[in-house]
Structures are given as structure tokens and as C-alpha cells.
């Protein structure tokens, strides 16, 4: 199609839609939980997303930044984010109280291939704030528990106070239909009842897995991937079933601004979920 024939009037990919902060509270000292809803009820209910996708959040005057969605599409209406205070936009977000207005657009990115994962076993490996994007797929698998095989979660945080959604994970331990192992690098409370050590020390506690039938989902700080992937490869999980969701600088979310480019792909369009095969194939991903 000739570029002149395209209509710009219909295209509003950059326009933030007004949304209201319904609830916000601290998860840790520098991580806050935000529950938001589009002001337009129709928009709130028709916002279809996949676990692992992200949205662009605008704070009036402070700017816009990408955040992975922590809620699950199986519970529509409200969107949840857990956000670490790190830059201009997040600092401004932290100052906003409940009922404040923000701008929201999305959803963007590929998300986790939940259709392909249907009927398979799921192993979720979380490091620190990696819990933010993985919470979506975890809650999704719990809400659709009969669609998946085994579900196992390994979560490592620096200290007990920095384990976000701590209560949610402890309550998972009570469930008989999934496996949950928790660890902290160091226990500064003296009250930690779970394991101490980095997340990879949890692997030996995992029950025997059916590797060809397992999808491993990983998210954590950049330094974590190398070590976790080594363990997953050792377990013989196929390279294209090891999935990770990555962070990059993004200014548009729709493949225009260039910042998230890696080789011939854009993280915002072709990611943020990549397989270990992508990592080997494209380099510079992790």
C-alpha cells in the first residue's frame, strides 16, 4: 500500500488513556504495588492482554516508562503493577496517592506463549523484582490450573523484606497442587523459616521434572540469568522452552524509538519474552 493511502487519523499509538490509581501500597521499602483502572469503563473491560505483556505508564509532567503487567487477564477490569523506585517517572508515581490519575497505553510485546504451554509442566524461576512480570503468568496458571501439568515455583530474594508478594508465595506453599521453594541470600531477621542461599541453591530441592514436557519461565536481575540457565540446561529442558522476559530502555513501546533494539529485533515488538535459543542466536540479549 502506498504510504499516502494510510490514514493517520485512526492511528493513535502514543496517546495515553486516563486511568485511576485504585490502590497503592509499599511491597518493600523501594517497591510499590499499584492497582489501576481505566477511567473509561468500556476500555477497562476490553483491555485484552497476555501474561508477560507490558504497558506504558505516563505521569503528568514526569514522562512515560514501560512496566510489565503483574495482574492476570483471567481477572479483568483492574490492572496491577509492581514498581521499583528508580528514575524520574517512578519517583513521580511513588508520590501519587490513591484516586490520582495517570496515563496508560498498551498492551505491548509478545507475552508468554500460554497457548503453546497448555498441557505442559511449568517451572517458574524468580529473582527479586522478576516477580513482577512472572506474577501474571503464575496467577494465570493458578486460575486455569486444569490447563497445565505440574506447576513449580523457585523464588530467591536478597533479604526477607525484599521478597515481594511474600504472603502470596507463603500461601502457595500450603497448596497441594503446586511446588514452591523460597530462598533469601541472607536472613537479617533471624525469623526466616525457608532456605538461605541464591536461587540456584533451590534446584536440588525440586522434585524430578519431565524435561521435554516442561516450560521454564525466568525473570530476575541481569546477573541471574547465566546461572539459572545453566541449571535449566543441566535439567535438559529444551532451549526453546526456556523463556525469559527482559528489560530494556523504551520510549515508545511500538517499534519506533529504537532504544530496545537488539540485532534485528525490537524488544518491545518481538519481546520482551525470549527463549534461550534466541539468546544464543542473537547475542546481547543477556
Amino acid at each position, binding site marked *: 500500500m502506498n504510504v*499516502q493511502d494510510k490514514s493517520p487519523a485512526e492511528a493513535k499509538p502514543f496517546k495515553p488513556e486516563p486511568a485511576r490509581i485504585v490502590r497503592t501500597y509499599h511491597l518493600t521499602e523501594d517497591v510499590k504495588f499499584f492497582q489501576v483502572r481505566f477511567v473509561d469503563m468500556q476500555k477497562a473491560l476490553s483491555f485484552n492482554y497476555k501474561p508477560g505483556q507490558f504497558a506504558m505508564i505516563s505521569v503528568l509532567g*514526569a514522562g512515560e516508562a514501560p512496566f510489565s503487567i503483574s495482574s492476570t487477564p483471567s481477572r479483568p477490569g483492574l490492572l496491577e503493577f509492581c514498581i521499583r523506585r528508580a528514575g524520574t517517572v517512578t519517583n513521580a508515581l511513588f508520590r501519587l496517592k490513591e484516586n490520582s490519575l495517570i496515563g496508560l497505553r498498551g498492551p505491548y510485546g509478545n507475552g508468554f506463549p500460554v497457548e503453546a504451554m497448555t498441557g505442559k509442566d511449568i517451572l517458574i524461576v524468580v529473582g527479586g523484582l522478576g516477580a513482577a512480570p512472572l506474577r501474571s503468568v503464575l496467577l494465570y496458571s493458578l486460575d486455569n490450573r486444569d490447563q497445565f501439568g505440574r506447576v513449580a515455583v523457585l523464588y530467591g530474594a536478597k533479604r526477607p523484606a525484599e521478597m515481594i508478594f511474600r504472603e502470596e508465595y507463603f500461601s502457595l506453599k500450603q497448596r497441594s497442587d503446586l511446588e514452591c521453594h523460597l530462598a533469601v541470600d541472607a536472613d537479617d531477621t533471624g525469623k526466616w523459616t525457608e532456605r538461605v542461599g541464591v536461587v540456584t541453591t533451590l534446584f536440588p530441592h525440586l522434585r524430578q521434572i519431565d524435561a521435554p514436557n516442561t516450560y521454564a519461565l525466568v525473570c530476575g536481575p541481569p546477573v541471574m540469568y547465566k546461572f539459572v540457565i545453566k541449571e535449566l540446561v543441566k535439567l535438559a529442558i529444551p532451549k526453546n522452552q526456556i523463556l525469559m522476559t527482559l528489560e530494556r530502555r523504551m520510549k515508545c513501546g511500538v517499534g519506533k524509538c529504537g532504544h530496545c533494539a537488539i540485532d534485528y529485533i525490537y524488544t518491545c515488538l518481538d519481546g520482551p519474552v525470549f527463549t534461550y535459543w534466541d539468546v544464543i542466536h542473537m547475542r546481547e540479549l543477556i
Partner: protein
Amino acid sequence: MRILKLQKNCLFPFLEAISKEAELWAPVAKGDKFAFDRVADFSRIAMNATRTIIPAKKIMVPANFNMFHFTEKGYKEDLSHVTDRILFGVHACDIHGLLTLDKIFTQVYPDPYYLEPRKRTMILGLSCWPDEHCFCKSTHTHIVEEGYDLFFTNLESCFLVWIGSSRGDDLIRLVPDLFDENLTEKDIKTYIQWQAERDNAFKTEIQFVRLPDLMELNYRAPFWEELGAACLACGSCTMVCPTCNCYNVMDKQFLGEKPGQRIRHWDSCTLPEYSEVAGGENFREKKFQRLKLWYTHKLQAYVSKYGKPSCVGCGRCLVTCPVQINVKTVAAALEGQEPEAFWKNLAKEATR
């Protein structure tokens, strides 16, 4: 496609007629270089201009513009900077540059800030003659088959005018008497001879077809770090490149005022903070990593995605980079032609 003949002395009357329709922009002299500018006095138009400092992309995506006005009530698009324009004197390489940007800006999530000016800008191409830095023949961008409303081939005796679109045809119909539909055998011969001579005039040649493989094979080559040491990370190469699309977005709010603006401005992948995320993690901290990204994107990645490099052979990086890091010298390094000392000397000079 119809081709008409326009006598040389009929060009200004034609421009006179069409400039009533929209703002007329064309290359004019700027020092010893050229730049696209709005023209009322047609004698300012540099008919034999080489590349302009900044390519035609500046008309489609200005270096700086306002995307939104915002208040507490929400965001309102601002497209007030867009006007109807006729861009005359666009060279083949720059037309290809726009066709490349079209892919990025309009294929997925069409960008209204690009589409609107793109639609409202008529492209009147003009043939040119290569200088020692032009290599558009190597990128096959010395000829255009699409992407223009009219294209003027500047022969010694007259112009041959290709009509590339319906609205281009409308321009001709404003003053149809200026144009001659009957091309003589002599006109055709003159054109063929002109084209042959032009094609032989290129002094720079690069084998682009080999470069994707060579980029891969040279991924860990030491010359990248030497190049990085020489690079000033000034961003000039990306500003002048017709296919560089990267931009940054920032909100501006004035002291004591509630309303503000969301500004979009050109960004460069060679600048230090390009790949830095909040919290301080920088995925391309070193200059050579960022340079390699640029060349990966131009010579290799774009080929994987669209089947051709995103370099259009305009030679702007050749004449702009203060330390001679450009498509020609990098291609030579990839081919293993340049002695390593070349970059080492550059690096030394750059840090002196």
C-alpha cells in the same frame, strides 16, 4: 509511467504555479554545503547541489516537536507543526531513505506524527551527479521506481519529468502547456547516454552483499574496540543518516503551571545513555558496543528483516564523521583491507 519533457526556462514558471498550492522547499547553499529550506526566490535553489547536510527526513520528523499538550484532564495530540509542503530537489538516495523510514514508521503501529507530514509533503525528485563520496550505485539506490510524485532528470538540454503519482499529475495539470508529451529519439538517446555517464562517474564502491556475513564473522574482531576508542560519541552520523529513526521523548512543564508538553526529539544510539535503564543498568556502556549496534543495524540486521541494507549510499557519514568512522571505512575494516594501524592512529589522534 508517463514521462514528459520540460524546457529549462519553463522550470521557474512551473515552480511559480505549484508554490501557490503549498510551501515550496528545496536545497539551497549553506556555506559550502547545502540544506533544505523554504524558498520564495527560485534562484536560491541549488540545482547542482550535492547531498544536503540533513536529509529530507527532517521534514517528516523534525528534530524537535511537540507530540501532546497535556493538562490534568488528559493528553491532546498536537500536529500543528505539519503543513502542506512541496519538497523539490530530493535526490534518489533520500527518496530511498524515506521509503526505508516508511517501513519502520508505518508498517506496524502506524505513527501519525510521521504519516501526517509524509502524506502532506509532495516529493519532487531531482537527478544528481555523484561526487567522490557517493556510493548509491553500490546500494542500488541511484535509481527510483517509487516514492516520488514527480522526478526531474536534469539533462543538458531539458528536463525529463517522470510522473509518479496521481497528485503529481495534478501539479502538471496546473500548467500543462509548459510540458511536452512528445519525446524525440534524440531525447531518448541523450537520456541513455546521460545515465551511462552518470553510472560510470561513481568513485566509491562497496560490496554490500558480503557485509552481513562479514559482520557476523567479525563480531569479536579487535578493530571494533579500536574504532570505539576513536569514536567521539557525538551522534553526528545518526543525525545526518537518512534512515536513522531513533528518538527520545520527554515531558516539559513550566514552573508554576499545570499544563505541559510531551516533546519528541532525535536521539542517537552512539550516545552513552542510549541503552541505559532506570536504576543505572546500561546494556551498551562502551562506545564500541554502541557503534557496533549502529553498523549491525545498517549493514546486517536490516537485511535480515527487509532484504536489503538500510544504508542508501548518500555519503553523509563519510563527509560528517570527524574521525572517519563511516560505512566506507567500516566496510573496509570488515573486508580486512585496512591495516590495523589506521584505527590505532585515529584513536591516538582522538585522545591527544
